[in-house]
Protein backbone atom coordinates (compact mmCIF):
# COMPACT_ATOMS: atom_id res chain seq x y z
CA UNK A 1 0.00 0.00 0.00
CA UNK A 2 1.45 3.34 -1.05
CA UNK A 3 1.48 6.21 1.44
CA UNK A 4 -0.62 9.33 0.96
CA UNK A 5 2.55 11.30 0.15
CA UNK A 6 3.59 8.84 -2.51
CA UNK A 7 0.16 8.87 -4.10
CA UNK A 8 0.03 12.68 -4.04
CA UNK A 9 3.42 12.83 -5.75
CA UNK A 10 2.21 10.46 -8.44
CA UNK A 11 -0.69 12.76 -9.21
CA UNK A 12 1.53 15.85 -9.29
CA UNK A 13 3.81 14.03 -11.75
CA UNK A 14 0.89 13.04 -13.97
CA UNK A 15 -0.43 16.58 -14.11
CA UNK A 16 3.01 17.99 -14.89
CA UNK A 17 2.64 16.50 -18.38
CA UNK A 18 -0.12 18.94 -19.21
CA UNK A 19 0.87 22.48 -20.04
CA UNK A 20 -2.60 23.98 -20.27
CA UNK A 21 -5.88 23.87 -18.42
CA UNK A 22 -7.87 22.47 -21.29
CA UNK A 23 -5.78 19.30 -21.16
CA UNK A 24 -5.89 19.11 -17.38
CA UNK A 25 -9.66 19.30 -17.44
CA UNK A 26 -9.90 16.75 -20.23
CA UNK A 27 -7.88 14.41 -18.03
CA UNK A 28 -10.12 15.12 -15.03
CA UNK A 29 -13.19 14.44 -17.17
CA UNK A 30 -11.66 11.14 -18.29
CA UNK A 31 -11.04 10.23 -14.64
CA UNK A 32 -14.57 11.33 -13.79
CA UNK A 33 -16.08 9.10 -16.43
CA UNK A 34 -14.08 6.13 -15.10
CA UNK A 35 -15.10 6.61 -11.47
CA UNK A 36 -16.88 3.47 -10.24
CA UNK A 37 -20.65 3.15 -10.26
CA UNK A 38 -22.26 4.57 -7.16
CA UNK A 39 -25.03 2.47 -5.60
CA UNK A 40 -28.43 4.10 -6.21
CA UNK A 41 -29.64 3.32 -2.67
CA UNK A 42 -26.79 5.43 -1.25
CA UNK A 43 -27.75 8.46 -3.33
CA UNK A 44 -29.75 9.99 -0.49
CA UNK A 45 -29.78 13.17 1.55
CA UNK A 46 -27.83 11.59 4.38
CA UNK A 47 -24.83 10.97 2.11
CA UNK A 48 -25.09 14.29 0.30
CA UNK A 49 -22.12 16.66 0.34
CA UNK A 50 -23.32 20.12 -0.54
CA UNK A 51 -21.38 22.15 -3.05
CA UNK A 52 -22.61 25.41 -4.48
CA UNK A 53 -23.29 24.28 -8.02
CA UNK A 54 -23.15 20.51 -8.04
CA UNK A 55 -24.47 17.71 -5.89
CA UNK A 56 -22.08 15.10 -4.52
CA UNK A 57 -22.53 11.99 -2.40
CA UNK A 58 -20.02 10.23 -0.21
CA UNK A 59 -20.06 6.89 1.63
CA UNK A 60 -17.26 5.68 3.92
CA UNK A 61 -16.64 2.19 5.27
CA UNK A 62 -14.21 1.29 8.06
CA UNK A 63 -12.52 -2.06 7.84
CA UNK A 64 -9.59 -3.45 9.89
CA UNK A 65 -8.13 -0.09 10.75
CA UNK A 66 -8.50 1.47 7.31
CA UNK A 67 -11.25 3.45 5.65
CA UNK A 68 -12.52 3.14 2.11
CA UNK A 69 -14.59 5.70 0.27
CA UNK A 70 -17.03 5.65 -2.61
CA UNK A 71 -18.44 8.89 -3.97
CA UNK A 72 -20.29 10.45 -6.86
CA UNK A 73 -21.31 13.81 -8.31
CA UNK A 74 -23.60 15.08 -11.05
CA UNK A 75 -20.65 17.05 -12.43
CA UNK A 76 -18.11 15.01 -14.37
CA UNK A 77 -15.29 17.40 -13.45
CA UNK A 78 -16.16 17.09 -9.76
CA UNK A 79 -16.22 13.30 -10.25
CA UNK A 80 -12.67 13.60 -11.61
CA UNK A 81 -11.60 15.54 -8.54
CA UNK A 82 -13.32 12.97 -6.32
CA UNK A 83 -11.48 10.16 -8.06
CA UNK A 84 -8.17 11.85 -7.17
CA UNK A 85 -9.22 12.17 -3.53
CA UNK A 86 -10.31 8.55 -3.40
CA UNK A 87 -7.08 7.42 -4.99
CA UNK A 88 -5.09 9.24 -2.30
CA UNK A 89 -7.26 8.60 0.77
CA UNK A 90 -9.22 5.39 0.28
CA UNK A 91 -7.69 2.42 2.12
CA UNK A 92 -5.55 4.62 4.39
CA UNK A 93 -5.62 4.63 8.18
CA UNK A 94 -7.89 7.10 9.96
CA UNK A 95 -4.87 8.89 11.42
CA UNK A 96 -3.26 9.38 8.04
CA UNK A 97 -6.53 10.61 6.53
CA UNK A 98 -7.08 13.11 9.34
CA UNK A 99 -3.51 14.41 9.02
CA UNK A 100 -3.35 14.44 5.20
CA UNK A 101 -2.40 17.91 3.97
CA UNK A 102 -3.48 17.15 0.40
CA UNK A 103 -0.93 19.55 -1.03
CA UNK A 104 -1.35 18.07 -4.49
CA UNK A 105 -4.46 20.21 -4.97
CA UNK A 106 -2.31 23.33 -4.67
CA UNK A 107 0.62 21.83 -6.54
CA UNK A 108 -1.37 21.00 -9.66
CA UNK A 109 -2.88 24.48 -9.45
CA UNK A 110 -6.44 23.34 -8.86
CA UNK A 111 -7.18 25.44 -5.84
CA UNK A 112 -6.33 28.68 -7.61
CA UNK A 113 -8.08 27.65 -10.77
CA UNK A 114 -11.36 26.54 -9.34
CA UNK A 115 -13.13 29.70 -8.27
CA UNK A 116 -14.23 29.86 -4.65
CA UNK A 117 -17.78 28.69 -5.31
CA UNK A 118 -16.64 25.66 -7.21
CA UNK A 119 -13.81 24.87 -4.81
CA UNK A 120 -16.33 24.89 -1.97
CA UNK A 121 -17.75 21.60 -3.14
CA UNK A 122 -14.26 20.09 -3.11
CA UNK A 123 -13.50 21.57 0.31
CA UNK A 124 -16.67 20.13 1.82
CA UNK A 125 -15.89 16.72 0.28
CA UNK A 126 -12.44 16.73 1.93
CA UNK A 127 -13.93 17.90 5.21
CA UNK A 128 -16.51 15.12 5.09
CA UNK A 129 -13.85 12.47 4.41
CA UNK A 130 -11.80 13.68 7.35
CA UNK A 131 -14.86 13.76 9.59
CA UNK A 132 -15.56 10.11 8.81
CA UNK A 133 -11.94 9.21 9.61
CA UNK A 134 -12.07 11.15 12.85
CA UNK A 135 -15.38 9.55 13.80
CA UNK A 136 -14.05 6.06 13.07
CA UNK A 137 -10.89 6.77 15.04
CA UNK A 138 -12.78 8.05 18.09
CA UNK A 139 -15.22 5.15 18.01
CA UNK A 140 -12.35 2.63 17.90
CA UNK A 141 -10.41 4.37 20.65
CA UNK A 142 -13.43 4.40 22.93
CA UNK A 143 -14.00 0.70 22.19
CA UNK A 144 -10.37 -0.09 23.10
CA UNK A 145 -10.60 1.94 26.28
CA UNK A 146 -13.87 0.34 27.27
CA UNK A 147 -12.42 -3.16 26.88
CA UNK A 148 -11.79 -4.85 30.24
Amino acid sequence: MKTIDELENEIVDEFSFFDNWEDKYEYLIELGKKLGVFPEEERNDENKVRGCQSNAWLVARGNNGSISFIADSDSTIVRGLISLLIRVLSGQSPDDIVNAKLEFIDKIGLRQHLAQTRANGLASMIKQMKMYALGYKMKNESLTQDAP
Partner: protein
Amino acid sequence: MPETLTKNIIDVNKIREEFPILKREINGHQLVYFDNAATTQKPKQVINAIKNYYELYNANIHRGVYSISAEADEAYSISKQKVKEFINASRAREIIFTRGTTEAINLVAYSYGRQNINEGDEVVISAMEHHANIVPWQVLCGEKKAKLVVIPINNNGEILLRDYEKLLNKRTKLVAVCHISNSLGTINPVKEIIQIAHDKNIPVLIDGAQAVQHTNVDVRELDPDFYTFSGHKMYGPMGIGVLYGKAELLEQMPPYQTGGDMISSVKFSGTTYNEIPMKFEAGTPNVEGAVGLTEAMDFIKTTGIENIREYEKELLEYASEKISMADGLRIIGTAKNKTSVISFIVNGLNALDIGILLDTKGIAVRTGHHCTEPLMDWLGIPGTVRASFAVYNTKEEIDYFIEALKKAIKILK
Protein backbone atom coordinates in the same frame (compact mmCIF):
# COMPACT_ATOMS: atom_id res chain seq x y z
CA MET B 1 -24.52 59.72 -32.77
CA PRO B 2 -27.98 60.80 -33.93
CA GLU B 3 -30.68 58.59 -32.48
CA THR B 4 -32.74 58.64 -35.64
CA LEU B 5 -30.31 56.26 -37.36
CA THR B 6 -31.09 52.83 -36.01
CA LYS B 7 -30.12 49.61 -37.71
CA ASN B 8 -26.44 48.81 -38.29
CA ILE B 9 -25.47 52.07 -36.72
CA ILE B 10 -23.45 50.42 -33.96
CA ASP B 11 -19.75 50.61 -34.69
CA VAL B 12 -18.95 47.72 -32.41
CA ASN B 13 -15.18 48.00 -32.85
CA LYS B 14 -15.28 51.60 -31.78
CA ILE B 15 -17.45 50.69 -28.78
CA ARG B 16 -15.09 47.86 -27.81
CA GLU B 17 -12.22 50.37 -27.71
CA GLU B 18 -14.05 52.05 -24.84
CA PHE B 19 -13.93 48.90 -22.68
CA PRO B 20 -10.33 48.21 -21.59
CA ILE B 21 -11.15 44.86 -19.97
CA LEU B 22 -12.13 43.34 -23.33
CA LYS B 23 -8.44 43.28 -24.24
CA ARG B 24 -7.64 40.88 -21.38
CA GLU B 25 -6.38 37.41 -22.04
CA ILE B 26 -7.71 34.49 -20.03
CA ASN B 27 -5.97 31.13 -20.26
CA GLY B 28 -4.19 32.35 -23.39
CA HIS B 29 -7.39 33.44 -25.13
CA GLN B 30 -8.93 36.86 -25.52
CA LEU B 31 -11.71 37.35 -22.97
CA VAL B 32 -15.19 36.74 -24.34
CA TYR B 33 -17.49 38.22 -21.75
CA PHE B 34 -21.00 36.76 -21.90
CA ASP B 35 -22.08 37.31 -18.30
CA ASN B 36 -23.62 40.71 -18.84
CA ALA B 37 -26.87 39.91 -17.03
CA ALA B 38 -24.78 39.50 -13.88
CA THR B 39 -22.79 42.68 -14.42
CA THR B 40 -21.66 44.63 -17.47
CA GLN B 41 -18.14 45.87 -18.07
CA LYS B 42 -17.38 49.56 -17.70
CA PRO B 43 -16.42 52.06 -20.42
CA LYS B 44 -13.42 54.36 -19.96
CA GLN B 45 -15.66 57.35 -19.32
CA VAL B 46 -17.08 55.66 -16.20
CA ILE B 47 -13.66 54.54 -14.95
CA ASN B 48 -12.14 57.97 -15.61
CA ALA B 49 -14.98 59.84 -13.95
CA ILE B 50 -14.46 57.86 -10.74
CA LYS B 51 -10.71 58.43 -10.92
CA ASN B 52 -11.24 62.15 -11.51
CA TYR B 53 -13.61 62.38 -8.60
CA TYR B 54 -11.02 61.01 -6.19
CA GLU B 55 -8.16 62.97 -7.71
CA LEU B 56 -9.95 66.30 -7.94
CA TYR B 57 -12.99 66.84 -5.76
CA ASN B 58 -13.53 64.06 -3.22
CA ALA B 59 -15.37 65.52 -0.21
CA ASN B 60 -18.36 64.74 1.91
CA ILE B 61 -21.47 66.46 0.63
CA HIS B 62 -24.52 68.36 1.91
CA ARG B 63 -22.87 70.19 4.81
CA GLY B 64 -19.58 71.39 3.30
CA VAL B 65 -18.99 75.13 2.99
CA TYR B 66 -15.84 74.77 0.92
CA SER B 67 -15.35 74.51 -2.85
CA ILE B 68 -14.64 70.83 -3.39
CA SER B 69 -17.56 69.81 -1.18
CA ALA B 70 -19.81 72.03 -3.27
CA GLU B 71 -18.41 70.42 -6.43
CA ALA B 72 -19.06 66.93 -5.09
CA ASP B 73 -22.52 68.03 -3.99
CA GLU B 74 -23.26 69.34 -7.45
CA ALA B 75 -22.01 66.15 -9.12
CA TYR B 76 -24.33 64.13 -6.87
CA SER B 77 -27.31 66.35 -7.67
CA ILE B 78 -26.56 66.24 -11.39
CA SER B 79 -26.53 62.46 -11.23
CA LYS B 80 -30.00 62.43 -9.69
CA GLN B 81 -31.21 64.89 -12.30
CA LYS B 82 -29.80 62.63 -15.04
CA VAL B 83 -31.53 59.58 -13.54
CA LYS B 84 -34.78 61.52 -13.50
CA GLU B 85 -34.33 62.31 -17.21
CA PHE B 86 -33.11 58.77 -17.98
CA ILE B 87 -36.35 57.18 -16.80
CA ASN B 88 -38.47 60.26 -17.52
CA ALA B 89 -39.63 60.73 -13.91
CA SER B 90 -41.48 63.96 -13.24
CA ARG B 91 -39.51 65.01 -10.17
CA ALA B 92 -35.88 64.50 -9.06
CA ARG B 93 -37.06 64.02 -5.49
CA GLU B 94 -38.65 60.76 -6.59
CA ILE B 95 -35.17 59.33 -7.18
CA ILE B 96 -33.49 57.62 -4.22
CA PHE B 97 -29.98 56.27 -4.49
CA THR B 98 -29.47 52.83 -2.97
CA ARG B 99 -26.72 50.20 -3.04
CA GLY B 100 -28.52 48.47 -5.89
CA THR B 101 -31.79 46.80 -6.81
CA THR B 102 -31.64 44.49 -3.80
CA GLU B 103 -31.48 47.38 -1.37
CA ALA B 104 -34.14 49.29 -3.31
CA ILE B 105 -36.59 46.38 -2.99
CA ASN B 106 -35.68 45.88 0.67
CA LEU B 107 -36.34 49.56 1.28
CA VAL B 108 -39.86 49.24 -0.10
CA ALA B 109 -40.47 45.96 1.76
CA TYR B 110 -39.29 47.36 5.08
CA SER B 111 -40.79 50.81 4.81
CA TYR B 112 -43.89 50.61 2.64
CA GLY B 113 -44.43 46.92 3.34
CA ARG B 114 -44.35 47.10 7.10
CA GLN B 115 -46.60 50.14 7.09
CA ASN B 116 -49.23 48.82 4.68
CA ILE B 117 -49.25 45.04 4.71
CA ASN B 118 -51.04 43.29 7.56
CA GLU B 119 -52.32 39.91 8.62
CA GLY B 120 -54.27 38.16 5.89
CA ASP B 121 -53.03 40.53 3.15
CA GLU B 122 -51.40 39.26 -0.02
CA VAL B 123 -48.28 40.21 -2.00
CA VAL B 124 -48.19 39.02 -5.61
CA ILE B 125 -44.92 38.12 -7.35
CA SER B 126 -44.20 36.00 -10.45
CA ALA B 127 -42.62 32.57 -10.81
CA MET B 128 -39.60 34.06 -12.60
CA GLU B 129 -38.46 36.48 -9.89
CA HIS B 130 -34.85 36.85 -8.77
CA HIS B 131 -34.26 35.97 -5.11
CA ALA B 132 -33.99 39.74 -4.48
CA ASN B 133 -37.65 40.11 -5.42
CA ILE B 134 -38.76 37.03 -3.46
CA VAL B 135 -37.00 36.92 -0.10
CA PRO B 136 -37.81 40.48 1.12
CA TRP B 137 -41.52 39.75 0.50
CA GLN B 138 -41.28 36.29 2.01
CA VAL B 139 -39.75 37.71 5.20
CA LEU B 140 -42.35 40.48 5.31
CA CYS B 141 -45.23 38.02 4.81
CA GLY B 142 -43.78 35.73 7.48
CA GLU B 143 -43.59 38.58 9.96
CA LYS B 144 -47.04 39.95 9.19
CA LYS B 145 -48.82 36.61 8.65
CA ALA B 146 -49.53 37.76 5.10
CA LYS B 147 -49.51 35.54 2.02
CA LEU B 148 -47.05 35.45 -0.86
CA VAL B 149 -48.91 34.63 -4.09
CA VAL B 150 -47.11 33.51 -7.25
CA ILE B 151 -48.23 34.29 -10.83
CA PRO B 152 -47.72 31.18 -12.98
CA ILE B 153 -45.76 31.18 -16.25
CA ASN B 154 -46.08 29.04 -19.37
CA ASN B 155 -43.44 26.69 -20.84
CA ASN B 156 -41.90 29.51 -22.88
CA GLY B 157 -41.31 31.49 -19.72
CA GLU B 158 -44.12 34.03 -20.16
CA ILE B 159 -46.39 35.34 -17.44
CA LEU B 160 -49.98 34.09 -17.72
CA LEU B 161 -51.85 37.39 -17.68
CA ARG B 162 -55.32 35.90 -17.21
CA ASP B 163 -54.18 33.92 -14.19
CA TYR B 164 -52.52 37.05 -12.88
CA GLU B 165 -55.71 39.02 -13.14
CA LYS B 166 -57.60 36.31 -11.24
CA LEU B 167 -55.05 36.32 -8.43
CA LEU B 168 -55.74 39.94 -7.56
CA ASN B 169 -58.38 40.52 -4.91
CA LYS B 170 -59.30 42.79 -2.02
CA ARG B 171 -56.51 41.38 0.13
CA THR B 172 -53.80 42.10 -2.51
CA LYS B 173 -51.71 44.98 -1.20
CA LEU B 174 -48.82 44.97 -3.65
CA VAL B 175 -47.66 43.44 -6.94
CA ALA B 176 -43.89 43.04 -7.41
CA VAL B 177 -42.61 41.65 -10.72
CA CYS B 178 -39.52 41.95 -12.87
CA HIS B 179 -39.53 43.96 -16.08
CA ILE B 180 -37.15 41.43 -17.69
CA SER B 181 -36.23 37.99 -16.34
CA ASN B 182 -32.54 37.57 -15.54
CA SER B 183 -32.61 33.81 -16.15
CA LEU B 184 -34.83 33.61 -19.21
CA GLY B 185 -34.63 37.03 -20.84
CA THR B 186 -38.44 37.32 -21.02
CA ILE B 187 -39.62 40.91 -21.40
CA ASN B 188 -42.79 41.08 -19.34
CA PRO B 189 -45.78 43.18 -20.46
CA VAL B 190 -45.28 45.48 -17.48
CA LYS B 191 -47.54 48.21 -18.78
CA GLU B 192 -50.47 45.79 -18.82
CA ILE B 193 -49.43 44.24 -15.51
CA ILE B 194 -49.42 47.69 -13.92
CA GLN B 195 -52.69 48.71 -15.54
CA ILE B 196 -54.48 45.56 -14.36
CA ALA B 197 -53.32 46.16 -10.78
CA HIS B 198 -54.13 49.88 -10.88
CA ASP B 199 -57.67 49.11 -12.04
CA LYS B 200 -58.05 47.49 -8.63
CA ASN B 201 -56.12 50.23 -6.81
CA ILE B 202 -53.16 47.95 -6.10
CA PRO B 203 -49.70 49.52 -6.21
CA VAL B 204 -46.94 47.90 -8.30
CA LEU B 205 -43.18 47.58 -7.90
CA ILE B 206 -41.18 46.76 -11.03
CA ASP B 207 -37.71 45.25 -10.69
CA GLY B 208 -35.96 46.84 -13.64
CA ALA B 209 -32.46 45.49 -12.97
CA GLN B 210 -32.39 43.70 -16.35
CA ALA B 211 -34.31 46.35 -18.29
CA VAL B 212 -32.72 49.81 -18.26
CA GLN B 213 -29.59 48.68 -20.13
CA HIS B 214 -31.61 47.06 -22.92
CA THR B 215 -34.75 49.05 -23.48
CA ASN B 216 -36.22 52.51 -23.03
CA VAL B 217 -37.88 52.88 -19.64
CA ASP B 218 -40.34 55.71 -19.20
CA VAL B 219 -41.90 55.66 -15.75
CA ARG B 220 -44.50 58.22 -16.71
CA GLU B 221 -45.69 56.01 -19.54
CA LEU B 222 -45.48 52.70 -17.63
CA ASP B 223 -46.80 54.27 -14.43
CA PRO B 224 -45.24 51.93 -11.81
CA ASP B 225 -45.47 53.04 -8.18
CA PHE B 226 -41.91 51.87 -7.59
CA TYR B 227 -39.21 51.06 -10.12
CA THR B 228 -35.77 49.72 -9.16
CA PHE B 229 -32.47 49.18 -10.98
CA SER B 230 -28.72 48.77 -10.45
CA GLY B 231 -25.85 50.85 -11.83
CA HIS B 232 -23.48 47.96 -12.40
CA LYS B 233 -25.75 46.13 -14.83
CA MET B 234 -25.98 49.23 -17.05
CA TYR B 235 -22.25 49.90 -17.61
CA GLY B 236 -21.97 51.82 -14.33
CA PRO B 237 -20.19 51.12 -11.07
CA MET B 238 -21.11 48.57 -8.44
CA GLY B 239 -22.67 49.75 -5.19
CA ILE B 240 -25.11 52.26 -6.62
CA GLY B 241 -28.69 51.67 -7.62
CA VAL B 242 -31.95 53.50 -7.89
CA LEU B 243 -35.34 53.38 -6.31
CA TYR B 244 -37.88 55.46 -8.18
CA GLY B 245 -41.05 55.97 -6.16
CA LYS B 246 -44.06 58.17 -6.66
CA ALA B 247 -43.66 61.19 -4.40
CA GLU B 248 -47.07 60.79 -2.78
CA LEU B 249 -46.12 57.27 -1.64
CA LEU B 250 -42.55 58.10 -0.59
CA GLU B 251 -43.76 61.04 1.47
CA GLN B 252 -46.01 58.83 3.56
CA MET B 253 -43.49 56.06 4.08
CA PRO B 254 -41.38 55.85 7.27
CA PRO B 255 -37.56 55.91 6.96
CA TYR B 256 -35.82 52.63 6.23
CA GLN B 257 -32.51 53.46 7.91
CA THR B 258 -31.80 56.30 10.27
CA GLY B 259 -28.76 58.44 11.05
CA GLY B 260 -27.15 61.47 9.46
CA ASP B 261 -28.42 63.25 6.35
CA MET B 262 -31.93 61.80 6.63
CA ILE B 263 -32.87 64.14 9.46
CA SER B 264 -34.18 67.65 9.56
CA SER B 265 -33.48 68.22 13.26
CA VAL B 266 -32.30 65.95 16.06
CA LYS B 267 -32.94 66.60 19.76
CA PHE B 268 -32.61 64.07 22.55
CA SER B 269 -36.34 64.42 22.93
CA GLY B 270 -36.96 63.39 19.33
CA THR B 271 -36.07 63.73 15.67
CA THR B 272 -37.84 65.21 12.68
CA TYR B 273 -37.04 63.67 9.35
CA ASN B 274 -35.76 65.31 6.23
CA GLU B 275 -37.84 65.56 3.08
CA ILE B 276 -37.71 62.95 0.32
CA PRO B 277 -35.40 61.71 -1.11
CA MET B 278 -33.04 62.58 1.79
CA LYS B 279 -35.34 60.82 4.24
CA PHE B 280 -34.30 57.53 2.63
CA GLU B 281 -30.59 58.24 2.25
CA ALA B 282 -29.12 57.92 5.73
CA GLY B 283 -25.37 58.36 6.07
CA THR B 284 -22.72 59.51 3.62
CA PRO B 285 -23.97 58.80 0.11
CA ASN B 286 -22.06 56.98 -2.62
CA VAL B 287 -20.82 60.03 -4.53
CA GLU B 288 -18.28 57.98 -6.48
CA GLY B 289 -21.11 55.70 -7.59
CA ALA B 290 -23.33 58.60 -8.56
CA VAL B 291 -20.54 60.18 -10.62
CA GLY B 292 -19.92 56.86 -12.39
CA LEU B 293 -23.63 56.34 -12.96
CA THR B 294 -23.91 59.73 -14.67
CA GLU B 295 -21.31 58.61 -17.20
CA ALA B 296 -22.93 55.18 -17.64
CA MET B 297 -26.22 56.87 -18.52
CA ASP B 298 -24.33 59.17 -20.87
CA PHE B 299 -22.74 56.14 -22.55
CA ILE B 300 -26.18 54.58 -23.09
CA LYS B 301 -27.63 57.86 -24.32
CA THR B 302 -24.76 58.53 -26.72
CA THR B 303 -24.89 55.00 -28.10
CA GLY B 304 -28.69 55.26 -28.25
CA ILE B 305 -30.91 52.84 -26.35
CA GLU B 306 -32.80 52.01 -29.56
CA ASN B 307 -29.51 51.20 -31.30
CA ILE B 308 -28.49 49.03 -28.37
CA ARG B 309 -31.83 47.24 -28.45
CA GLU B 310 -31.67 46.62 -32.19
CA TYR B 311 -28.08 45.45 -32.11
CA GLU B 312 -28.60 43.12 -29.14
CA LYS B 313 -31.68 41.70 -30.85
CA GLU B 314 -29.52 40.90 -33.85
CA LEU B 315 -27.01 39.15 -31.58
CA LEU B 316 -29.78 37.20 -29.86
CA GLU B 317 -31.31 36.02 -33.12
CA TYR B 318 -27.92 35.08 -34.53
CA ALA B 319 -26.89 33.16 -31.39
CA SER B 320 -30.28 31.47 -30.90
CA GLU B 321 -30.24 30.08 -34.41
CA LYS B 322 -26.64 28.88 -34.24
CA ILE B 323 -26.81 27.44 -30.74
CA SER B 324 -29.93 25.38 -31.39
CA MET B 325 -27.87 23.28 -33.79
CA ALA B 326 -25.64 22.01 -30.98
CA ASP B 327 -26.17 18.37 -30.07
CA GLY B 328 -28.80 17.74 -27.38
CA LEU B 329 -29.14 21.42 -26.52
CA ARG B 330 -32.40 22.97 -25.33
CA ILE B 331 -32.94 26.70 -24.87
CA ILE B 332 -34.74 27.52 -21.62
CA GLY B 333 -36.84 30.63 -22.04
CA THR B 334 -38.33 31.05 -25.49
CA ALA B 335 -40.65 33.98 -24.93
CA LYS B 336 -41.74 35.91 -28.02
CA ASN B 337 -40.53 39.12 -26.49
CA LYS B 338 -37.02 38.50 -25.24
CA THR B 339 -33.83 40.35 -24.45
CA SER B 340 -30.28 39.17 -25.24
CA VAL B 341 -30.14 36.24 -22.82
CA ILE B 342 -29.77 32.61 -23.84
CA SER B 343 -30.21 30.11 -21.05
CA PHE B 344 -29.75 26.47 -22.03
CA ILE B 345 -29.22 22.94 -20.87
CA VAL B 346 -27.56 20.08 -22.70
CA ASN B 347 -29.00 16.58 -22.34
CA GLY B 348 -27.25 14.63 -19.60
CA LEU B 349 -24.57 17.26 -19.05
CA ASN B 350 -23.90 19.36 -15.99
CA ALA B 351 -23.98 23.15 -16.44
CA LEU B 352 -20.97 23.63 -14.17
CA ASP B 353 -18.82 21.33 -16.34
CA ILE B 354 -19.74 23.28 -19.46
CA GLY B 355 -18.97 26.59 -17.70
CA ILE B 356 -15.54 25.38 -16.54
CA LEU B 357 -14.60 24.14 -20.00
CA LEU B 358 -15.71 27.40 -21.64
CA ASP B 359 -13.56 29.30 -19.15
CA THR B 360 -10.48 27.40 -20.35
CA LYS B 361 -11.19 29.10 -23.70
CA GLY B 362 -11.52 32.53 -22.09
CA ILE B 363 -15.34 32.55 -22.30
CA ALA B 364 -17.22 33.87 -19.28
CA VAL B 365 -20.78 32.52 -18.87
CA ARG B 366 -22.84 31.93 -15.76
CA THR B 367 -23.97 28.49 -14.64
CA GLY B 368 -26.42 27.36 -11.99
CA HIS B 369 -29.77 28.68 -10.85
CA HIS B 370 -28.95 32.39 -11.41
CA CYS B 371 -30.52 33.36 -8.06
CA THR B 372 -33.88 32.11 -9.33
CA GLU B 373 -34.03 28.75 -7.55
CA PRO B 374 -37.86 28.66 -7.39
CA LEU B 375 -37.96 29.27 -11.17
CA MET B 376 -35.60 26.33 -11.78
CA ASP B 377 -37.82 24.14 -9.55
CA TRP B 378 -40.84 25.39 -11.50
CA LEU B 379 -39.17 24.38 -14.76
CA GLY B 380 -37.98 21.10 -13.24
CA ILE B 381 -34.28 21.66 -14.00
CA PRO B 382 -31.31 22.05 -11.61
CA GLY B 383 -29.88 25.04 -13.45
CA THR B 384 -28.75 26.31 -16.82
CA VAL B 385 -25.77 27.72 -18.65
CA ARG B 386 -26.54 31.37 -19.41
CA ALA B 387 -24.91 33.51 -22.06
CA SER B 388 -26.05 37.13 -21.94
CA PHE B 389 -24.93 39.72 -24.47
CA ALA B 390 -24.22 43.43 -24.24
CA VAL B 391 -23.65 46.11 -26.85
CA TYR B 392 -19.90 45.38 -27.07
CA ASN B 393 -20.32 41.71 -27.96
CA THR B 394 -19.92 40.53 -31.56
CA LYS B 395 -21.10 37.79 -33.88
CA GLU B 396 -17.48 36.63 -34.12
CA GLU B 397 -17.47 36.08 -30.37
CA ILE B 398 -20.71 34.11 -30.68
CA ASP B 399 -19.15 31.92 -33.40
CA TYR B 400 -16.12 31.29 -31.19
CA PHE B 401 -18.38 30.52 -28.20
CA ILE B 402 -20.46 28.04 -30.18
CA GLU B 403 -17.38 26.23 -31.46
CA ALA B 404 -16.02 26.01 -27.90
CA LEU B 405 -19.42 24.85 -26.65
CA LYS B 406 -19.62 22.10 -29.26
CA LYS B 407 -16.14 20.95 -28.30
CA ALA B 408 -17.06 20.96 -24.60
CA ILE B 409 -20.16 18.88 -25.31
CA LYS B 410 -18.05 16.41 -27.28
CA ILE B 411 -15.51 16.08 -24.45
CA LEU B 412 -18.18 15.65 -21.79
CA LYS B 413 -20.40 13.20 -23.69
